[in-house]
């Protein structure tokens, strides 16, 4: 009787763990895909990191 209870509990725990793992993996894949799509749509994005970038300076040099 106790073996059955333990086995059922382990089955439920396993399904919960697998389900959460699958959701996390799917979320990571989705976020990667979304990032790839957003970058493709908007072009290469440069973040401001306190380093002078000559290509970002206005053409007249001001």
């Amino acid at each position: 009787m106790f073996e059955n209870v333990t086995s059922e509990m382990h089955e439920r725990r396993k399904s919960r763990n697998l389900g959460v793992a699958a959701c996390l993996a799917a979320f990571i894949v989705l976020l990667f895909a979304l990032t790839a799509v957003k970058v493709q749509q908007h072009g290469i994005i440069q973040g401001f990191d306190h380093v002078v970038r000559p290509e970002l300076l206005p053409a007249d040099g001001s």
Partner: protein
Amino acid sequence: MSDATVNPSASSAADRRARDFHRARDYEPSFGDYFALLKPRVMSLVVFTALVGVLAAPSSLHWVEAFAALLFIAVGAGASGALNMWWDADIDAVMRRTAKRPIPSGRVDGQDALYIGVALSLLSAVMLWLTTNLLAAGLLAFTIFFYAVVYSMWLKRSTPQNIVIGGAAGAFPPMIGWVAVTGTLSIEAVLMFAIIFLWTPPHFWALALFMRNDYDNAGVPMLTVTHGRRSTRNHILVYSIIMALFAVGAAFTSLGGPFYLAVALIANAIWLRDAFRIWRRDEAAADSDDFSVEKGFFKFSLLYLFLHFGAIWVEAVLPAGAWGGW
């Protein structure tokens, strides 16, 4: 294992909570138990109507963005379902229709449902914002708030107009789908909202008729409880007529077209026929055939919504001037 201080047959709310806590603590929920908190059948309807909103919109999203938007709208709907189950656990335990839900059946702890609901609400709104735009995310957040707070915590237990006003929560998804694509509201989005808004009361009042004393036992002021079953039948007919006029009228707007008109005429003819049959019969007649007409109306109402939104989708994809649009 049981706690000797807990009386399983006690009716007080504190004892029920203690019993549920101990039952939940002894039982480890499976993934399916947690998933059931999200009301998967409601989620599927939300996904479909939101999908139509996305597809009917004049511009388009990349398919990855569209998939993500629909997913986060569905997660938001599931989150509000979990919050509703957390709040309504006491009346769910009393009603036959809902007694097997995860919390009243002891499979999931109420606090877990609250945490899951809040976490998924935040996740879905933030992710929809990052995927699409702030307006869509704001509408989703408002929808969750409206269903969990305005409907579940306030209207449901305080007024027979609960489902008339609270039904707005289920009407937002196609609007959110549209706004996710276009970034703005439009009359077409409002029309799709209105179709579901008008559909909701007769759908749920038919359910209340054949669920008999379920809502009465739970103390929920459904129309069948506060105004009686005859009044409920009258209301179903009146609201069904209003629904039919609006649904057919929508065929002549930018949302509709000849295909939608054909579908709407047939679906609304059946809808009105069934509503009229519900109105004509009395409780003795309904009891004698186990509320077959009311149950049939309820089942058809799901197909009814599917047909209308399916027709909107067809109008959106058909070439304009041929079958698509006027």
